[in-house]
């Protein structure tokens, strides 16, 4: 399985995600600079966390219009797997590959702590190693993670099984108290309609080694390694 991680000025989790990919696939990903208009031939493209372009204009807005993104969009439309984590999720929403947008956290505070996530479906490239309804503990670290879309879009996402993860309590209950940022319907991650693109705010790559306190994020990378041999 060949992978690429796109690096923007201001990305800062590219090495974390590269480590996670190395652990699950046995191979290091190619790191691709945002000005490149060519992407190597890969099975998976990752947009890592960080603060691309200093979050100018809107989070992810400038990065979504950088040269490499034209190619990422083209590959995604051809069915190549793409995952955007945190800032990567914001970029995917701004690029139009995923519906909705990430607003400032309702608290206006940067939130950096472990959260619980409920896996909404095991029926995807990204979540096959999990059980539907399984509860994961992974960290979040963001200021703009408040997922927003209009009600018609949210209903459609739910109807089509495009909600990947929701914030929940340790026992899996989806409740307001477990929502770290005010996201609509506690949504932490969504798929595109063809389920080859995933965006999520939490950092599964930072929960892939027991030294980091949790290995619950590893299933995501292992699922991809299984599916994209």
């Amino acid at each position: 399985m060949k992978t690429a991680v796109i690096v923007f000025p201001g990305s800062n989790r590219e090495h974390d995600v590269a480590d996670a990919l190395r652990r699950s696939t046995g191979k290091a990903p190619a790191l691709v600079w945002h000005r490149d208009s060519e992407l190597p031939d890969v099975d998976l493209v990752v947009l890592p966390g960080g603060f691309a372009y200093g979050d100018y204009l809107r989070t992810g807005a400038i990065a979504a219009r950088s040269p490499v993104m034209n190619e990422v969009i083209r590959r995604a439309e051809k069915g190549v797997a793409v995952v955007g984590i945190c800032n990567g999720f914001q970029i995917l929403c701004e690029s139009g590959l995923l519906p909705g947008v990430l607003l400032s956290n309702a608290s206006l505070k940067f939130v950096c702590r472990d959260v619980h996530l409920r896996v909404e479906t095991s029926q995807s490239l990204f979540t096959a190693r999990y059980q539907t309804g399984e509860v994961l503990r992974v960290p979040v670290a963001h200021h703009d993670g408040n997922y927003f879309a209009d009600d018609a879009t949210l209903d459609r996402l739910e109807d089509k099984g495009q909600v990947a993860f929701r914030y929940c309590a340790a026992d899996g209950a989806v409740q307001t108290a477990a929502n770290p940022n005010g996201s609509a319907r506690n949504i932490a991650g969504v798929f595109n309609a063809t389920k080859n693109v995933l965006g999520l705010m939490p950092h599964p790559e930072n929960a892939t080694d027991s030294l980091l306190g949790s290995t619950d994020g590893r299933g995501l990378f292992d699922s991809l390694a299984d599916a994209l041999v």
Partner: protein
Amino acid sequence: MKARIHVTLKNGVLDPQGKAIGHALGNLGFAGVGEVRQGKFIEIEFAERDRAKAEAAVKQMCEKLLANTVIENYAIELVG
């Protein structure tokens, strides 16, 4: 010519910054402050002299980059 663009959040989109500004105004003793909404103001200078062409170009800029029309509205004013 210059374009002045106001980008504002659509009705119904939560604006926690606007809320925080409203609270701060209350703390300063300004009475009767209702809802506060924060937006962006962008000014662009460009060479185009034809107003219709300029307006069409700025509209494209707003649709493609300056506003995220999922959550924002924009208003364009041409001056000069």
